[in-house]
């Protein structure tokens, strides 16, 4: 997702484009509202709560891992600058327990490493 992918112009008609816009809007809302709407005041069993406690840490690293680790199209391996910037981001986050410090460390190290090595 580095340089925005150069998409070819679509062949889809305006009607179909609006169908995608409507369906994705409605479907995404239903996914988001689902359990907030249904569970309401009901209490969940402890075993389920225990699973749900790990939702953020189970989803977010996996959501990003392929982009960070798998080689981009046309290159043979992961980009060492990006790997280093991500490693610094995570380590500062673990050490400081603070999202903002981790974010600043990550952006600064990405900029510096790209400038020095790139």
């Amino acid at each position, binding site marked *: 997702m580095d340089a925005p992918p150069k998409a*070819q112009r679509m062949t889809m008609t305006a009607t179909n*484009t609006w*169908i995608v816009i409507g369906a*994705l809007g409605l479907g995404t809302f239903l996914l988001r*509202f689902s359990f907030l709407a249904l569970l309401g005041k009901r209490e969940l069993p402890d075993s389920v709560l225990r*699973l749900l406690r790990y939702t953020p840490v*189970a989803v977010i690293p996996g959501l990003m891992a392929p982009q960070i680790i798998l080689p981009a199209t046309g290159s043979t391996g992961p980009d060492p600058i990006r790997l280093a910037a991500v490693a610094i981001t995570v380590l500062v986050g673990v050490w400081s327990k603070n999202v903002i410090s981790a974010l600043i460390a990550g952006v600064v190290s990405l900029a510096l490493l790209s400038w020095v090595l790139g």
Partner: protein
Amino acid sequence: MNTAPLTARTSYWRGMREGGPFILIVFPFGIVFGVVAIEAGFSLTQTMAFTISAYAGAAQLTAIQLMSESAPLAIVILTALAVNARMAMYSASLAPHLGKAPMWHRALMGYLMVDQTYALSSMAYDRFPQMSLAAKTGYYFGVASLIWPVWVAGSLAGAVVGNLIPSWVPLGFAVPIAFMAMVGPMLRTLAHVAAALVSVIGALVFSPVPYSLGLLIAAVLAMVTGALVETWMLRRKPSA
């Protein structure tokens, strides 16, 4: 940073403040979407309607990519929804905290649910277990009322003036950095570390699974791992 937010109002401002740095990420991500949508042939109206109705950057980019590849309509919709399926997990995970809020609050929370609102709120609820429902609601809407306008403004900026941005600016890689910045502070116990490792390995191993379902498989395995390691640690230290 360590005093608990108690009232709805102080929580709202705290949420907005802690969401602040994500402007630096959400705005460029919005620009990326705006640029890609216009390049793919969306009108300005369609671009903005899409970004406001779906409010889900990764899914929007996925849909546009597939539309550009002339994929069948059903595949475009289902694949983009699969990218958003993690939102159902977020919804389940927030329900114990926010489920007692009025229905229209919960509907609005649903619409405004993105990775940042979810992750920051769930971290705040973990940090301050004594937060009241009003405080939890305030915090959530504090983060959300910052992220939403920034996302919409970024999309608009990308759609209108995106072609002026030089191609060497690495807008895209700011997104993984922002997400990984949220991961470090989440790694509080061995169980969290184990879940994160399974999530990464699973996502890589299952990345060839079609329709973005690999992430869901990895996430479920990681959640089970976290719960099992937690159970195992509790058994070793019954006093904890």
